[in-house]
């Protein structure tokens, strides 16, 4: 430490150190001279001998300065000054180089940082890769949840599992302080779920094994969001009761911010205390387990058949066709398209970075070649290759530092909005925040990248000049420039073509007719708590009252209820059979729904035959149904009105004893997954004949005042009964928009990547050509002096990039076409349009031409005399 302090002090007081050293040596020489004089030598001879005995004074001074670390610092200061003088002396080239470096690497880093949370599968729990989902599979390959006793068997039988937990996601109704009931996402969980996921509460405690015993006290853990927004972050509420599902629960803990698992959950209650979960055939829980340190996913899969055998032995009533099916937990909780999006993003960012670095490298090569005469002269004048290398590396270091000042604002300007966009489109990322830490970590990395790129040509030269490695003779700029332009154009065309394709797929999706009209439609979810609305008549009555009140609202044209809207993302599917098809082994599967009479008018679904439901279709009336055109065609082909159909209890079969439903109407086909779905067979029964504990209100506003209707709706609904839980009052247009959130996010990010790639290519082409042209001023001056016209000069410059641009562009278009096909198949299953690679090719070629035109025009504007004087 002391040594470093001394060295630092010496460095700061360099001139004083030099003076001290001079004085010290002078004193020594004077003493030696006096000693010699005392022996009779004359003064001049004594001085000469004293210096002779001492040796080379300057060499030893230099040696001392080397020991004290002064020489290196002074050399560095000199090199930095020299580098700055050179950079300032060539403002055009400096601006070109620093601008290109900063912009290209900055955009890559900005976009790359924003994609990190997406590609790193940033789930809000510890080591997601160490978790396995435990479910069971039916013979037809569908996955089902498991029962709580199933999970106990897993935990007891498989030594490869360190902990086995389960959760049952559900919407739960909560009563706030004003007495209003509202619905939030929640889950009934086993007491050890948080332990298995590796998360802990911020306040209070998680569940304990005692909380999981049947009949235990009702308790709840709440999310940080719920704690802040609903309980006012009031510490005194910890331990107090809130009403959940009509039952008071003591709030025992608050989770950390960002933990809302399963997706959107705000409340967790213990599942084990409820009797219903003790039933071995009640398959409601999704199992999640953590591998033991010595185990692996493959070992868990290998143990599954034995677990199945134990389950069948322990619970004889079980369907023998069900088999335990462990899967990686990450696959379960992240949507399937996420991996594809991740790969696309990683690929895009890497390509961007390569474009940026290739521009920088090319500029560095050009700069180095422009100095080859200077370097050769310096070597001939006695400079060592090492000394020249040090100077050039210092120059690269200064240039890279200047580029950083541009790079970081650009990176930040892209990073923050892109991350915000990703967060708004992907609920899994709501806890991701702009990480200044990550941003700072990128500083040395990006600096090293810039420095390495800038100094690569210098190091190659040094290796040749020092005889460490034979370096080929300098080639002309032509092949390098062609390779550069060709590869950049290829990449830009490929990316732009993919982005245009992705955008067109997205636009086509949103232009698809879903079979219903969404403009002016408002929806709201209703729940009828079982403690108040246990009777079917009570639910019929409250729905009737709800409809009357909504109809009475100003500007409401039609009002109806249904179980789920076509864009809710969840649907019930039942096997359906016509009266003559009960023996069909593979029944038709249709989306099942219940509706009140005006649903079709409210949603603009055309009535093709028969009638809609009416007042006679109540609980005591004949069971009736309305079918979609597709279902009618598949069941009977023609004349469906008056025919009867039967509904199964699941997708697999229809029991012979199921009641007949007489078909009273046929309506147009609709999709059931927003824009992403295909029209599917559908059947509706009257809500009055299927009064569930929940419903979705659907109303069409007669005016454009949808916000006004949204504002008035909750009070009108609660006016029917204060016990109704009202949730998600939303325009249908917003729900439809959400249904294409992922393709939209992909199109936007791909668009950003492609646009940045295009800009970088144009900038790189411009920079490289501008540099190249500036070194050719003299040659062009001679050509022009010999009679070459301005037009031929421009054509010469443009011609230098035309061929590689065309070849690279064609290659890029082919790659873009392939990528577009893959993208369409993977994300949406939609078709592709061959026009986009061609459009992308034309756009990039025009842009490259325009970028090359600038330097060409600059060249011909230069007076011939001045051009002839340029080196």
């Amino acid at each position, binding site marked *: 430490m*002391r*040594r470093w302090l*001394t*060295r630092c002090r010496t460095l700061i007081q360099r001139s004083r150190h030099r003076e*001290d*050293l001079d*004085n*010290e*040596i002078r*004193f*020594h020489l*004077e*003493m*030696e001279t*006096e000693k010699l004089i005392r022996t009779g030598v004359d003064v001049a001879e004594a001085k000469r001998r004293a210096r002779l*005995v*001492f*040796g*080379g*004074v300057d*060499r*030893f001074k230099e*040696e*001392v300065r*080397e*020991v*004290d670390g002064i020489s290196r610092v002074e050399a560095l200061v000199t090199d930095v000054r020299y580098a700055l003088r050179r950079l300032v002396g060539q403002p055009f080239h400096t601006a070109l180089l620093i601008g290109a470096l900063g912009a290209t690497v900055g955009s890559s880093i900005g976009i790359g940082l924003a994609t990190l949370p997406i590609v790193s599968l940033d789930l809000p729990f510890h080591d997601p890769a160490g978790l396995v989902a435990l479910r069971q599979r039916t013979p037809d390959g569908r996955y089902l949840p498991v029962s709580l006793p199933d999970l106990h068997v897993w935990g007891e039988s498989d030594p490869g599992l360190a902990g086995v937990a389960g959760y049952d996601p559900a919407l739960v109704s909560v009563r706030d302080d004003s007495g209003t009931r509202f619905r939030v996402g929640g889950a009934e969980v086993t007491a050890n779920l948080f332990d298995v996921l590796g998360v802990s509460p911020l306040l209070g405690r998680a569940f304990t094994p005692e909380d999981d015993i049947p009949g235990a006290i009702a308790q709840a853990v709440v999310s940080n969001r719920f704690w802040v927004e609903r309980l006012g972050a009031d510490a005194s509420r910890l331990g107090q009761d809130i009403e959940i599902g009509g039952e008071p629960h003591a709030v025992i803990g608050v989770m950390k911010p960002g933990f809302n698992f399963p997706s959107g959950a705000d409340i967790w209650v213990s599942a084990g205390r409820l009797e219903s979960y003790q039933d071995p055939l009640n398959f409601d829980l999704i199992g999640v387990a953590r591998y033991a340190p010595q185990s692996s996913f493959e070992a868990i899969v290998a143990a599954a058949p034995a677990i199945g055998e134990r389950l069948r032995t322990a619970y004889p009533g079980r369907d023998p066709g069900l088999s335990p099916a462990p899967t990686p937990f990450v696959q379960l909780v992240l949507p399937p398209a996420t991996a594809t999006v991740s790969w696309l993003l990683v690929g895009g960012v890497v390509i961007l970075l390569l474009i940026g670095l290739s521009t920088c490298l090319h500029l560095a090569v050009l700069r180095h070649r422009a100095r080859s005469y200077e370097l050769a002269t310096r070597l001939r004048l006695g400079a060592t290759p090492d000394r020249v290398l040090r100077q050039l590396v210092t120059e690269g270091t200064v240039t890279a530092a200047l580029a950083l000042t541009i790079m970081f604002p650009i990176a930040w300007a892209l990073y923050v909005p892109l991350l915000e966009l990703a967060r708004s489109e992907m609920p899994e990322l709501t806890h991701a925040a702009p990480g200044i830490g990550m941003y700072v970590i990128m500083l040395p990395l990006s600096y090293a990248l810039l420095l390495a790129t800038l100094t690569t040509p210098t190091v190659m030269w040094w290796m040749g000049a020092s005889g460490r490695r034979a370096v080929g003779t300098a080639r002309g700029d032509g092949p390098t420039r062609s390779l550069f332009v060709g590869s950049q154009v290829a990449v830009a065309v490929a990316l732009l073509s993919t982005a245009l394709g992705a955008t067109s797929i997205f636009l086509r999706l949103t232009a698809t007719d879903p079979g219903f009209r969404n403009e002016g439609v408002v929806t709201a979810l209703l729940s009828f708590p079982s403690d108040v609305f246990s009777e079917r008549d009570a639910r019929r009555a409250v729905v009737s009252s709800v409809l009357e009140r909504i109809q009475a609202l100003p500007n409401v044209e039609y009002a109806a209820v249904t179980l789920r809207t076509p864009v809710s993302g969840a649907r019930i599917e039942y096997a359906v059979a016509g009266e003559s098809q009960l023996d069909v082994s593979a029944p038709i599967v249709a989306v099942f729904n219940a509706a009140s009479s005006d649903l079709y008018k409210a949603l603009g679904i055309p009535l093709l035959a028969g009638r809609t439901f009416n007042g006679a279709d109540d609980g005591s009336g004949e069971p009736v149904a309305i079918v979609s055109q597709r279902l009618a065609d598949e069941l009977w082909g023609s004349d469906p009105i008056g025919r009867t159909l039967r509904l199964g209890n699941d997708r697999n079969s229809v029991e012979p004893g199921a009641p007949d439903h007489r078909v009273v109407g046929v309506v147009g086909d609709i999709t059931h997954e927003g824009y992403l779905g295909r029209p599917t067979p559908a059947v509706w029964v009257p809500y009055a004949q299927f009064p569930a504990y929940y419903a979705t209100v659907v109303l069409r506003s007669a005016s454009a005042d949808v916000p006004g209707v949204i504002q008035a709706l909750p009070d009108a609904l609660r006016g029917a009964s204060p016990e109704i839980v009202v949730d998600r009052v939303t325009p249908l247009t917003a729900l439809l928009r959400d249904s294409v959130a992922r393709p939209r996010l992909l199109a936007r990010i791909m668009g950003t990547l492609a646009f940045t790639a295009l800009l970088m290519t144009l900038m790189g082409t411009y920079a490289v050509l501008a540099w190249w042209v500036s070194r050719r001023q003299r040659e062009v001056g001679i050509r022009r002096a010999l009679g070459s016209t301005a037009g031929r000069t421009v054509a010469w410059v443009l011609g230098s990039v035309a061929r590689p641009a065309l070849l690279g562009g064609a290659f890029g278009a082919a790659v873009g076409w392939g990528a577009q096909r893959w993208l369409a198949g993977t994300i949406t299953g939609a078709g592709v349009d061959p026009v986009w690679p061609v459009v992308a090719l034309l756009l990039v070629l025009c842009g490259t031409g325009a970028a090359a035109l600038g330097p060409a025009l600059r060249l011909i504007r230069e007076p011939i005399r001045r051009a002839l004087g340029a080196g």
Partner: protein
Amino acid sequence: MTDPTDVLHGTLNLLILQTLRQGRMHGWGISERIQAVSQNTLKVNQGSLYPALHRMEQSGLLNSSWGRSDNGRRAKFYELTELGRDHLAVERTTWRRFQGAVELVLANG
């Protein structure tokens, strides 16, 4: 009298430390003292002396300060630090072992 010999490579630090054990001294004084004590047998290469002194100062073995020499001139004086004293003890032991080993080889080799 024979001409003094250059200090054996690697022993300059030991000689400087040992010389400074007598008290603070300037560079020329150290050089003269080594030559005198060795009865004109050892001669310090004067040009190597100063890099060695600065290196030892950087290593914390010596401290330096400016003062007046016997003839009233301004000179830079060096003195041992505690670390320097410890280092001297180690260097002396190493040297004695080396010297004994060389003696053994000369006597029996």
